[in-house]
């Protein structure tokens, strides 16, 4: 069963901490995405990557960075966590290379920043 795996389902961090959210896919997908989901705001795109070592800013990149050193892994980094980054974070991947732009999502990581 193909999967997108997010390393942590629930995290609680303190303001100012550096936070790593890891995402791994086993489908050999080229494209990977990070969204955050907040009540009333839907899904908002933070960063995405169409290739290894490539990254593009989404709609709300401020306060975040990403790393894609290997094709299967896409990490989201909060350099200095703030309370307004408390949210559900969703990683997704898609085939790329002209394939249908259909996303496979991970189960989500719910981050609370105190």
């Amino acid at each position, binding site marked *: 069963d193909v999967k997108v795996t997010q390393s942590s389902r629930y995290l609680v961090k303190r303001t100012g901490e550096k936070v790593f959210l890891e995402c791994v896919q086993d489908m050999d997908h080229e494209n990977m995405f990070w*969204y955050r989901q907040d009540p009333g705001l*839907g899904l908002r795109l933070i960063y995405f990557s169409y290739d290894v070592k490539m990254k593009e800013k989404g709609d709300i990149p401020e306060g975040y960075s990403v790393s894609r050193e290997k094709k299967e892994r896409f990490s989201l980094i909060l350099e200095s966590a703030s309370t307004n980054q408390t949210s559900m974070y969703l990683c997704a991947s898609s085939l790329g290379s002209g394939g249908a732009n*259909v996303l496979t*999502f991970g189960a989500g990581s*719910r981050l609370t920043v105190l």
Partner: protein
Amino acid sequence: SQQGEEDPQALSIQEGENATMNCSYKTSINNLQWYRQNSGRGLVHLILIRSNEREKHSGRLRVTLDTSKKSSSLLITASRAADTASYFCATDVNGNTPLVFGKGTRLSVIA
């Protein structure tokens, strides 16, 4: 940037009834997709309809697309309690840019 807008925001029906959700969008699209999200989980892809298609079926799901009105609808027939979830439309503008999601319709199916 919000492209799709679902309507209604929330819907509550009895088991066995049909549920209809609508999605409106703003720009031309390559395709439109519907996703489902169970509470506290990730989204799951349900169905994709291309811009040159008008209707598509998958099991109890029926999707229509009206590109002249820039709208789509998702019909779930003979709903079950297990259909309780949030449903999102997502638009693919050209196949090379990320999908843009609406805010979702929360469906409650009461047994």
